[in-house]
């Protein structure tokens, strides 16, 4: 993984769902990441449509990405396909929740 992508992922790992206590990458909310010299595009989902924290989490992700984007444009795309399910939790996320 190149250094740029690693920096972007690290920034997104700092965005924590305040109810669950787990970051959005390990929650499986990040569906895709595309880095170009002009733009960072992150495809994200939420745990459910109308998620009450949706706006906040997207705002946090936006801020986190802007922190590492430099001159690049940050673009978040909200996707519901496929719908999120607990199966999308990472192995580390499952371990965290098992111990929580």
């Amino acid at each position, binding site marked *: 993984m190149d250094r740029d992508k690693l920096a972007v992922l690290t920034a997104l790992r700092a965005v924590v769902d*305040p*109810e669950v206590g787990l970051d959005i990458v390990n929650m499986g909310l990040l569906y895709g990441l595309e880095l170009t010299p002009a733009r960072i595009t992150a495809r994200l989902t939420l745990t459910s449509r109308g998620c009450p924290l949706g706006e906040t989490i*997207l*705002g946090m992700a936006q801020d986190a990405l802007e922190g590492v984007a430099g001159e690049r444009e940050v673009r978040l*795309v909200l996707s519901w396909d496929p719908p999120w399910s607990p199966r999308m*939790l990472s192995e580390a996320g499952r371990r965290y*929740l098992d111990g929580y």
Partner: protein
Amino acid sequence: MSMTAAPAPPISAAGLAKSPPIDLPMRHFVSAAVAFWIFAAALAGGTGRFFGFDFQAKWVLGLVHIMTLGWITMTMFGAIIQLSAVLWETPVAWPGAVRGAWWAFTLGLIGFVAELWSGGSRYWIPAALLFGAVVVYLACFVRTMAAAPRLDWTARHLAVSVSCLAAVVTLGFLMAWDRDRGVLFRDTTGALIAHVHLALVGWVTLTVVGVSYRLVSMFALSHIESKTPGRLALALACAGLGGLALDGLFFGRRLMPLWAGLLAGAYLSYAWQMRAIFSARHRRIDPALAYTLLALVGGALWTVLGVLLACGMLPEESHVFAAYIYACLIGWATPFILGQIHKIVPFLVWLHIFGRRPWSAEKPPPKMTDLASERLAWAEFFAVAPAVLLGVAGFLAESRLVLEAGSLFLLAGATLYVSNTAFTLSFLVREGGWTGTSSRS
């Protein structure tokens, strides 16, 4: 399916419905907590009034309305208002009217109970305020549902429960009008049974059931594979409740065992659905989930008592009816509400204080669990759980001692609940109050 069409805006949060201003749900939760504590304190101080020659109908009636309207209905209104963005993907309609309805409902309830307890005869005035407030709430909910892009199965439960609330209010109004005339309802006991069950099963239970599918699976990080038991539960509940209400109102209560059987079947199907949700959970049992399990036990107790009463296996005496109602209100509805509110109130406070941008990785916001005391919540749970069992046992056995013990446990639980809620709200007060709109708007 993506929410955005190319070219996408920098942040595509379109379609995320706005939460209401924080004061709107919070005023309901705060007044409900006060009502819960008053109920528990009055019950603890007046257990003797339930039994024998000391039975005081107006005092009991006032107490029941503090519980059903002040605690349960007030909380459910607040939750529906807050959850409209989640459940119906649309903000609640006419927030100004909702605020006005809260005032009318609160003042109406205070006046109604005060008239009952002081032996007054003008309770039609506060009752009219209550009636008007409920009509406004209903209008707001129906308008909100009409604007929803889709109605999922939780929303379908709420559509039925809101319809039942309209039926409860209408029937209550007609019963009050007919009280001295005897034109509409020849079997007043049958009409009362219909009224009570439209409220307890139709309004309270269907709201709890529908919301539980969404919130419990969300809080437990569970995923529902099959909704068949839940769908069966809804169909059986509608059939049982509809039959019971019509039989009670018009047909002389001839088939009560059948309706009780259908409602018991509905409860079993619901419990089976909840078992699936709990089996697939990805989080440990916290106080909120423990309360849901306690509610399932209380609901089972209520169901068994209902079947035994309908089949004539328990005597139709006031202390048995009291056990039946207590099992529903304190055993079933209250633990479920307490569990969900332990999640919802810290969430609201967190969102209002910490959901504001800009967000910084160097100084991340606290977790929502930091805004409430889990230790206090567990202590509260272990006070409420014995209150459920002792209360039902006390009424059934007509034991004042056992009922007093149960009511003291309930008072301890209510006091801890109010303390924990105050602790959470103290964050809000320190950050400048609850006025204004939601954090990110």
